């Protein structure tokens, strides 16, 4: 394994690990707050029990997210000093703002988790709201940095040195809006529907337990609208990629030749040597229609990109297909569940819906990971699109396979422990019979 590959693998593992906890850290506080507000309004202690239990799980997940995020802030330099030296002054500001957002999040999470009996109920809810808001802001600030790597602005390069630096213009880069929207919705959709899935499964086995029914409703309230909106934000993001990163876009869609009236390629295996995609279903003209709102429009293919600047086409295309397919499933199931709720029908009496929701439990997280694979692998060989190659940013330290192996083992181990703890928490659910039915 080359040092460059080891560094990329370590960064990939660290991000893939952290993103799960970051996403949960953004969305779980909202679930807790919704449950707590319902308790305050209705006096129904099941909601209080829910908020307390979710807070317990969130404490563990947030802690792992906080420390793995710290690792990332160092790894930016440990693995990619060339990137940070160039990018720091241009795009470091959102990282600094993220520092403060994370501060507020950590402070009020402490207040929330340990303050149940110490502060008045309204102050407690307010602390939860602050955690939820600052958590979302943290995510947005970090994704702005990533958006800048995809659509770099706010500086000029003179003899490979930066000049005319404008950090505000860098923050307002073209990909910032679509990427932050897509990621924030992903956090609520993935977490909300994962929680909904767990409780839907429990409800199927234990249909009289009001605890699971109420948990399911709160989780759907957060997750389902986000999942339904997500395809729209995905459309926005994809068209942004088409504008600024044609190579990534062509790899996502497995489009080797520049084509007028390009078809949408579903599934299939892109054969890079033969420059064609096998076993795929093609919908004529659909890609041009979706991308340009013009069925006859021209889409740039990989033939316009020098082969040394191609990303890994099969990995990017397949990850993109996985993300879209799972996201589509989540949107449909969410629409179904909301339709049932809107007609005031009982969720507990709908075994097929409950199974469909249970199946969805891991899907949001898999889709999120797949989406990050698309955006990160799709940008290669660049770390800053068109400006700095990943190979030129890596640290000169030899033997990078050692930290890669070390951190991977550590993260696998921590992941297993977290799962064991969560299983314990979920198993110890109370039985609260639903008297209202």
């Amino acid at each position, binding site marked *: 394994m080359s040092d460059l590959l080891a560094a990329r693998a370590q960064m990939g593992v660290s991000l893939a690990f952290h993103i799960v906890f970051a996403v949960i850290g953004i969305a779980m506080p909202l679930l807790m707050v919704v449950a707590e507000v319902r308790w305050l309004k209705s006096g129904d202690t099941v909601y209080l029990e829910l908020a307390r239990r979710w807070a317990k799980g969130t*404490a*563990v997940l*947030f*802690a*792992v997210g*906080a*420390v*793995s995020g*710290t*690792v990332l*802030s*160092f*790894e*930016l*330099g*440990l693995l990619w*000093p060339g990137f*940070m*030296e*160039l990018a*720091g*002054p*241009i795009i*470091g*500001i959102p*990282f*600094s*703002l*993220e*520092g*403060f957002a*994370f*501060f*507020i999040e*950590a*402070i*009020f*999470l*402490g*207040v929330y*988790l*340990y*303050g149940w009996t*110490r*502060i008045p109920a309204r102050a407690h809810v307010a602390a939860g709201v602050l955690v939820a808001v600052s958590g979302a802001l943290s995510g947005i600030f970090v994704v702005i940095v990533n958006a800048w790597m995809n659509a770099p602005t706010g500086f000029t390069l003179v003899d490979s040195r930066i000049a005319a*630096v*404008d*950090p505000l213009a860098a923050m307002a880069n073209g990909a910032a809006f679509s990427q932050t929207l897509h990621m924030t919705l992903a956090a609520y959709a993935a977490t909300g529907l994962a929680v909904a899935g767990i409780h839907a499964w429990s409800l199927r086995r234990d249909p009289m337990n009001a605890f699971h029914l109420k948990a399911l409703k709160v989780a759907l309230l957060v997750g389902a609208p986000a999942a339904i909106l997500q395809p729209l934000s995905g459309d926005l993001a994809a068209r942004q990629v088409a504008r600024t990163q044609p190579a990534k876009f062509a790899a996502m869609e497995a489009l080797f030749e520049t084509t007028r009236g390009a078809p949408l390629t579903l599934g299939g295996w892109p054969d890079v040597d033969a420059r064609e995609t096998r076993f795929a279903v093609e919908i004529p003209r659909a890609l041009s229609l979706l991308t340009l709102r013009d069925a006859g429009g021209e889409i740039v293919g990989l033939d316009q990109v020098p082969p040394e600047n191609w990303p890994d086409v099969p990995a990017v295309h397949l990850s993109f297909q996985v993300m879209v397919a799972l996201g589509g499933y989540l949107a449909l199931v969410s629409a179904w569940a909301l339709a049932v709720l809107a007609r005031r029908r009982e969720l507990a009496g709908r075994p097929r819906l409950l199974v469909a929701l249970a199946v969805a439990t891991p899907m949001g997280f898999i889709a999120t990971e797949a989406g990050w694979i698309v955006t990160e692998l799709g940008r290669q060989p660049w770390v800053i699109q068109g400006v700095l190659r990943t190979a030129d940013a890596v*640290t*000169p*330290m030899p*033997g990078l396979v050692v*930290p890669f192996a*070390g*951190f991977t083992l*550590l993260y696998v181990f921590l992941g297993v*422990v977290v799962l064991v*703890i969560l299983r*314990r928490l979920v198993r*110890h659910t109370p039985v609260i019979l639903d008297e209202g039915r």
Partner: protein
Amino acid sequence: MSAAGAIAGILVLALNAYVLLGGADFGGGVWDLLARGPRAARQRDLVAHAIGPVWEANHVWLILAIVILFTCFPAAFARISITLHVPLALMLVGIVVRGSAFTFRSSGAGDARFERRWGRAFAGASLLTPLLLGITLAAIASGRLTVAGNGEGGRGKGFAEGYVLPWLTPFGLAVGLLTLACFAYLAAVYLVLEADDPDLREDFRHGAMRSGMVVLAAAVLALGLAGTGAPRLVDGLVRSSWAIPYVAITAATAAAAMVALWRRRYGLARIAAVVEVSLLVWGWALAQYPYLVPPELTVAGVAAPAITLRLVLIGLGGGAVVLVPSLYYLFRVFKMPGTG
């Protein structure tokens, strides 16, 4: 003062806050490890109780210091990251294990074996991280992180010569020990005030005095080794007019803290200990100034463009407006006497 100088000052302030707050949380881990005698379980409980609500917030100071460093002094961040990859990576392992183990332990749902095992991981990681933090700061002060030494210009050099020997020095180990001792000392001084049981309070009073002595011994050792460990730094200090009074004031504060502990004036002891450790941090920073990474990278020399510095200052000001009342609220809720 220039914008770069002001931001460098804020960077040291953030590190200082990390040492005083995050450091004490690591120190809590040391006392968890050293808990002995009939009150061992209650000592551990007090540590966990004291750290619980605040450790995550305390930890963010380090992140703030890092983002300021890479935004405003990118070349220094790159140099430190390349040359000190090994101790920084090990420090990160410590940070990850410490934070995870602490919350895993408290979520054990009464499983004693599970809790004991993670308690040990928490305590062990609490030793490792401060040691490596001290080693890292000592290596920066040592003046060995040069282009010729390794990194950019030293691609041909061996791994040990380029990436281990610059930081694995007697001076580095002494500063690592000093850092660990300071953290344990701060934790004990704070815990004396948080204990509401007289016996428990005496336990931590003794711990504070013992670790205070270790701080003094480690400080003397580090100063003694600095002549060979960080020669340029010492040269600068010897020539400066402020070094001797500064050391004298630090020593007087240390003595005051000890006397206050001896006479059970705990509030006073806490103030003196905080000032003492802060003086150590600022002594390091002032001795290095104007160098960020001596002997090649100065604060002004590696500063980001003026617009970035100005925006960071605005951001830090705005952030402080939100942060200070929030921190005040956190500590008022959990750390005021009579709220335990």
